[in-house]
């Protein structure tokens, strides 16, 4: 029962991963986990004690999220503000000391993001959730299609059409493909029965990518 409640509560709290949580979300997640363990491990404590606590914390989390969403001032107070650690290739020692960021840890994170040289970085920003965002200097960024002046086709939304032989009719409609057209496309690829298809997807280029059952097996 508590497990089902926890799954529902975590769904209501949103889709963010642990590493992406804001400080207040992390605190609430830890307390919720602790609250659910107590009635599970101690049979003397009624389940309602855990359930009420979890529901109150869920309400508190939604309340703070809504406040943060509506007010920049509250957001800055509760979540903090991002801090620039590298500005135009120069390390900001004062900010690093204030945030207790070790130089070696910073360099390790930069190397992990494939920026071995501090001087190549225009800005490195420590975000509220603890992740480091890096904006490289323009001369070290690989040229984009826009830089090269090449015409590109914007990608379409990729849609899964068939999974394990089952056609997803909702996605088929979303992709704007009729069932007859799908069958015709399959026949063109020498696939007589859609149930033989393990996976089919409409790609970002608007083509259907077919994967037959057992095709990739050794």
């Amino acid at each position: 029962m508590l497990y089902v409640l926890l799954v529902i509560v975590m769904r209501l709290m949103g889709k963010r991963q642990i590493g992406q949580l804001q400080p207040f979300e992390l605190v609430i997640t830890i307390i919720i986990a602790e609250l659910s363990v107590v009635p599970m491990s101690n049979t003397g404590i009624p389940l309602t004690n855990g359930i009420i606590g979890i529901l109150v914390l869920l309400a508190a989390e939604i309340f703070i999220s809504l406040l943060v969403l509506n007010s920049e001032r509250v957001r800055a107070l509760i979540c903090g503000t991002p801090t620039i650690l590298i500005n135009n290739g120069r390390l900001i020692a004062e900010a690093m000391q204030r945030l207790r960021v070790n130089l070696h840890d910073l360099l390790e994170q930069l190397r992990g993001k494939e920026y071995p040289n501090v001087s190549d970085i225009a800005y490195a920003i420590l975000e509220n959730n603890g992740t480091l965002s890096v904006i490289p200097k323009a001369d070290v960024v690989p040229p984009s299609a826009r830089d090269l002046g090449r015409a590109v086709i914007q990608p379409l939304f990729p849609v899964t059409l068939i999974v394990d032989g089952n056609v997803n009719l909702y996605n088929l409609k979303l992709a704007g493909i009729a069932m007859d057209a799908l069958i015709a496309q399959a026949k063109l690829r020498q696939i007589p029965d859609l149930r033989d298809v393990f996976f089919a997807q409409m790609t970002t280029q608007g083509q259907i990518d077919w994967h037959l059952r057992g095709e990739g097996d050794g």
Partner: protein
Amino acid sequence: MHKWSGWLLILVIMAVITTGGILSQRYLDRSADELISQLERVQQAVEQKDWMTSEAGFALLDQHWSRVHNNWALFTDHLELDNLELSLIRLQKLIETRDEVNARVETGEAMDMIRHIPERERLTWRNIF
């Protein structure tokens, strides 16, 4: 989640918890008062050494307790309920063995335990901190 649905969810959660809290506290108070008044009748009979009346009174109390016990277990500490249960079993045996002094002591103890349960669940500063 839409903004309004978030506020609505908060409202529903708080309404359910507040209403549930008020209703459960009322139930605890009412049932505890009933149990105490039944125990007081048993105590009076014990003081008068009217063992037949005290046995009959205890039987009624025991019936009532069986019903209340299951409901109280939903929102009170089971250890406290177990202690109260043991106290009532001791009281029953003391009445059966016509032990007036210890039966009076046990009745007082059981009454105190019953009073303590709704007091422990009440929303008070002492319980919060």
